[in-house]
Every structure is written in C-alpha cells, then in structure tokens.
C-alpha cells in the first residue's frame, strides 16, 4: 500500500524557538530576501511560528503555532493552477513543480493557510550563505511559487535507501528538517497509512484537531491543541 505522509504538531510542546524555521531555510535553499523586502512582506518561510496572545501583562497566555503547508487531500491550490504546477502526488503530497509554474499566484490566493510563497526577485544569498546550498534541492527562479514539500528530497532518499537494502521503511527513519531540529519533539512525521506509526497514533488520538477544518481541505497536518490555553482559568 502506498505511503500517506502526515505530520502531528503538539502545541503543548512547542516553545516557539523557531529552530524549525531556520532548519527549513537551510535544508530547502530558501533565500533570505533581505531586511527591506522582508518588511514589505516578501519573506518566504515555508514554516512559520504564529504567536497568539490572550490577556494583559503580566497575566498573559501565549500560544505558539507552527504553520506549514498542510498537504491537503482536498487542496484548493491544485485545481486552480492552469499549468498543473500545483499537483497531487501518488503519495498524497501537494507537489509544486517549479518548471511548470508561470506565476499566476492563483494557488496562493486559494490557499486558506497562506503558506505558499512567491519569488518576487531572483534568489540571492548573503555571503557566505551562498556556499551552504543543499545540492538535493533545486533553486527557484523569479516568478514562480514555492512552498513546503515535506522535504520530498529526504523522503525520496529514504525510499531509495530502503529499496536498495531490500527492506521496508522504518517509522521515524525519514524526518523532515523541521521535525529533526525540534528540541522538544513537538513535531512527529510519518506514514498515516501505517496504523502502528507514531504519527498515526497521535493523529487518531482524542486531542487531534485540524487547522481550519471547516474549510474542508482535509489537511494531513494534525494539531494537538494547547491544553493549558483551553484549561481552567485559575491554572
């Protein structure tokens, strides 16, 4: 049976350290657009940590919520693309095929999570960051969309390795960069078609929720909400 990759994010464990954001930039050759462009909201963070506050200082409650492409099964970004650049793979990923993209940006408008990013300029890296590009990931040119791939290069490498060794993939063998770098293990990634996987177990737990479930996108990222946020007021 084909794989069905999914992720679970435990918001009770997330400390908002943004290690996942840094790891993602390094792994996926995401160009830093510079201070001025970032101030114009052109930054490209395939994963971002959203911060929500409640209350007045010093009685402040804060929630960190990492948001990345939800790899929806009913992805609004896919049907609207006129050139099949946004495309559903056989393993349930929302592929983004840069070479096909002509830059209508329709996919980004259709995405309820705002997790798709546009290359407003050709990418540049401040020295010496230009020397650390990941050779497994293509660099995107001006005018195309990009977004989280669940580190498809790592998925493919793991599958090829397992096939070469004539064995099944083990749960936890493949880890996207964000999952690997999370110091509190707030993120778990794995095959949702394998009922024994950690990701499956957590995705089917009673705490499981989906982000913007009401939009009907059937996301493959599951959030375990922050209990202290919704817990007793006197806690």
């Amino acid at each position, binding site marked *: 049976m084909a794989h069905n990759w999914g992720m679970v994010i435990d918001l009770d464990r997330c400390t908002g350290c943004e290690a996942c954001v840094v790891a993602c930039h390094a792994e996926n050759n995401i160009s830093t657009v510079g201070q001025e*462009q970032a101030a*114009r*909201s*052109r*930054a490209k963070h395939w994963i*971002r940590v*959203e*911060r*929500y506050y409640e209350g007045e200082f010093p009685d402040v409650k804060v929630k960190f*919520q990492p*948001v990345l492409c939800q790899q929806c099964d009913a992805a*609004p970004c896919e*049907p*609207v*693309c*006129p*050139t*099949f650049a946004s495309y559903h793979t056989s393993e349930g990923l929302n592929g983004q095929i840069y070479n*096909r*993209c*002509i*830059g*209508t*940006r*329709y996919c*980004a*408008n*259709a995405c*309820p*999570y*705002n997790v798709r*990013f*546009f*290359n*407003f*300029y*050709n990418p540049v890296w401040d020295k010496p960051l230009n020397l650390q590009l990941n050779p497994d990931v293509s660099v995107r040119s*001006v*005018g*195309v*969309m990009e977004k989280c791939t669940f580190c498809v290069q790592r998925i493919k490498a793991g599958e090829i390795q397992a096939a070469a060794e004539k064995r099944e993939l083990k749960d936890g063998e493949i880890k996207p960069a964000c999952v690997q770098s999370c110091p509190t293990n707030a993120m778990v990634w794995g095959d949702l078609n394998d009922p024994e996987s950690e990701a499956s177990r957590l995705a089917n737990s009673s705490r499981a929720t989906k*982000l*913007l479930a*009401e*939009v*009907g*996108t059937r996301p493959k990222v599951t959030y375990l909400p922050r209990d202290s946020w919704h817990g007793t007021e006197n806690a």
Partner: protein
Amino acid sequence: MAQKTPEQITDDLLRPLSGISGRYALSAAFLAGIVVAALAAFMWQVYAGLGVSGLRTPVFWGFYITDFVFWIGLSHAGTLISAILRLANATWRRPVTRCAEVITVFALSIGAAFPVIHLGRPWLAFWLFPYPSERGIWPNIRSPLLWDFFAINTYLISSVTFLVLPIVPDMALVRDRAAGWKKRIYGALALGWTGTPKQWHRLETAMHIMAVAVIPVAVSVHSIVSWDFAMAPVPMWHSTIFAPYFVCGAIFSGIAALILAMALLRKFLHLEEYLLPIHFENLGKLLLVMSLLWFYFVFAERLTTWYGNGSGEMPVFWTTQHGSYSPLFWAMVFCNFLIPAPILAIKQLRTITGTAIASFTVVVGMWLERFLIIVPSLSHKYLTYSWGTYRPTWVEITITVGTFCAMALLYMIFSKLVPIISIWELKAGLQQAPNHARIIAEPDEVRAD
C-alpha cells in the same frame, strides 16, 4: 432643425476622416507618451521581477487583476448593449451601436493583456494554449484561468466580427469617394462590397446571427471572470451570487463608458446633430436600471454575509464596512448609487451633462468595486497572524493610467479611420421608417406622440 438628406449624412459623418487638426495631433502625442511610459514600466517589471509591484504575501492580486476585471467589464458596453438594442429593434440605437462595439473590442484587448502583465513569468503565457508540446502536458481544464482563456478569446473573436461586419458597407462608401492609396486600402477593407441585394441580405442575416450569438458569449465571459474568485475558498469570494453580480456590474460600467465616449465624440467630432439628447436620455434610463440592480446585488450580498456571521467572512466584511477599506467602500457606494441614481432618476437632470457626470462616477465606482472585491479578502484571509496589506507602486499606477490612455488613443485613431456612426444604418433608418428622420430631427416632438 432641418431634416437631413442621405447626402448630408454622408458628408457629415465622413468629415472626421478627412484630416487631423493640431489639437488632435497634440492630444494623440500626449496619450501616446503615457502609453509608452506604461510599456516601459512593464518592460522594467519583466526585467527586474514582479517585486517592483506592490504585491506581497498574502495579497498576490492587486491593481493588475482589478484592471483586468474592470476592462473586461467595460467591454460589455458594446457588443452586449448593441446586440440587445438590435434584437429589440430599437430604432434610436442606429447612431449608438458602432460607438459601443468599438469600446468592446478595445476594452477587451486591453483587459486580456492584464493576465499576461500580472504573470510572474509572462514569457510563458503561451502555456495556456492547448497544443501538443514537448512538455507532454495539456493545460489544466479544471482551472478557472483556463476557462477565462477560452471565454475571452471567444468573446474577442465574436466581438471583432460583430464590429467589422456592419463596417463593410461604410468602407465601400469611403472607397468610392477616395482616390490613390486611400482607395486601395479602403477597397481592401470593403471586401468587394458593391451593394447588391444579395450582399445586403447576407449582411443582415449575418448580423442577426451574430447579435443572437454574442449575448450568451458576453454573459458567459463575465460569469467566468467572476468564477476566478468564486471558485476559491476565500472569504467573501466563495459566493453563488458572484456570476450574476459581475455580469450586472459589467453591463453597468459598460453603459457608463458608452455614455462618456458618446459625450466626448459629440463634442470633439461635432456630432451634435446625430448624438442627440434622446440617446443620452435613453441610455441614462438604462444606466439607472443597472445602478438600482447593482445596489440590490450589493445589499443582498452584504446582508446575507452579515446575517450569516461566518468566522472567515466577518473580518473581511468589517474591514470594508468600517475598517481600513471603508473609505473606499463608501466612496464606491456614492459613485455607483448615491450620486448617479438621483441624477438619472430626475428628468431635468438626465441631460447630456448630467448623464456624463453620472457615467464618470460610475466608471470610478466600478473600478473601486473590483479593487474592493479582490484586495480586502486576500488581506484578511482566515489566520489572523498571516493577514497583510497592499499598496501599489509607481509601476502598477503607470501601467493602469497607461491603459486608460491607450483606450482613449485607440478610440481617437479609430474615429479618424472609420465613420464612428454607421452611415448605411442611419440611411436605412431613413428609408425603412420615415419616422426615424423625425426622431433624428425632432426627438421631443416624436416622444410627445
């Protein structure tokens, strides 16, 4: 006012073709200068990247798509109004139809340029053509953008046909009066027209077929433009009301553009005896109906959204009602309803000046309407942390202004090459309905009948 003879009509309407004044050359050069500036701005955008525009995350569509919807909407002036008036056999239509059909062709051409202008990689726009390419994939027929591609091309082909068919006899008329190279050019454009009964019969039949065919095409085009938005699960885009709402808005802005163009033509080409107060009055009444209909659609949309109180919709709703976009929203209500409706409803104000003022505010208001449909929804989409804003840059503003100048310039050039009022149709009106001559000469008297 004396009744016009066919000879006088021919002389009057061919006069604009006889040469250009210094004032004409000066204004044409001025407009052309701005159009060139807009082209330069676009080339700069292609060279540097779309970053030179004001677009940003999450507002990925801004001025360009606003302009796209605006110009496609404006194009409904023509062919649709003209086709309906032809089918309804409204005799007063005769001096109006060609003015309208020209707006359609030019506005549609300008509108169709914007999906290319706004692309991240405009040099690959041809990938929307379904052709067996080396890439081995077809365009995605599920994408509303592809529906757009086919709808707009269909509309462009049919509206060009609809414009050109009734021009043929007038081209022959110009040919017969010209000499030298002019005679050769107009002779080619006249397509061998000699005015035999067989040719007339074929022209009438073809025009009738086109008038019937072009109406569903026009309706489908703006429905499909609305579906660019309505098909996406974006707050206040994802709405069943959008297709008729857009078609209504398109006809609304189209009539306004037609009245404005007619007022300018009347003044600058001295067509005071052809474009009469009754034409402005009748079109003004149509504009009033569309203004009321537009208000009804906006009211229905706003009421159901507010009553439904959806968590995704309400931030967009409130930002337009009394948030950061509310000055634009209320300006739109003033421009599209509160100013034009009283002007058009009161008979004493429904003059040429009155209808022209009302039309001007409607054109402004309908541009604002398209902006307010697109930008607030994108900037206030679901997750509050990802909300954003949008401000256009000089590149977008230059290109937008440039397209208005391009429209004016194309119209000016066209009116010097082709009689802007259909000569043979006016004359046919004289022959077929003797009353029509009186409508031209004494409209008030006829109305009193």
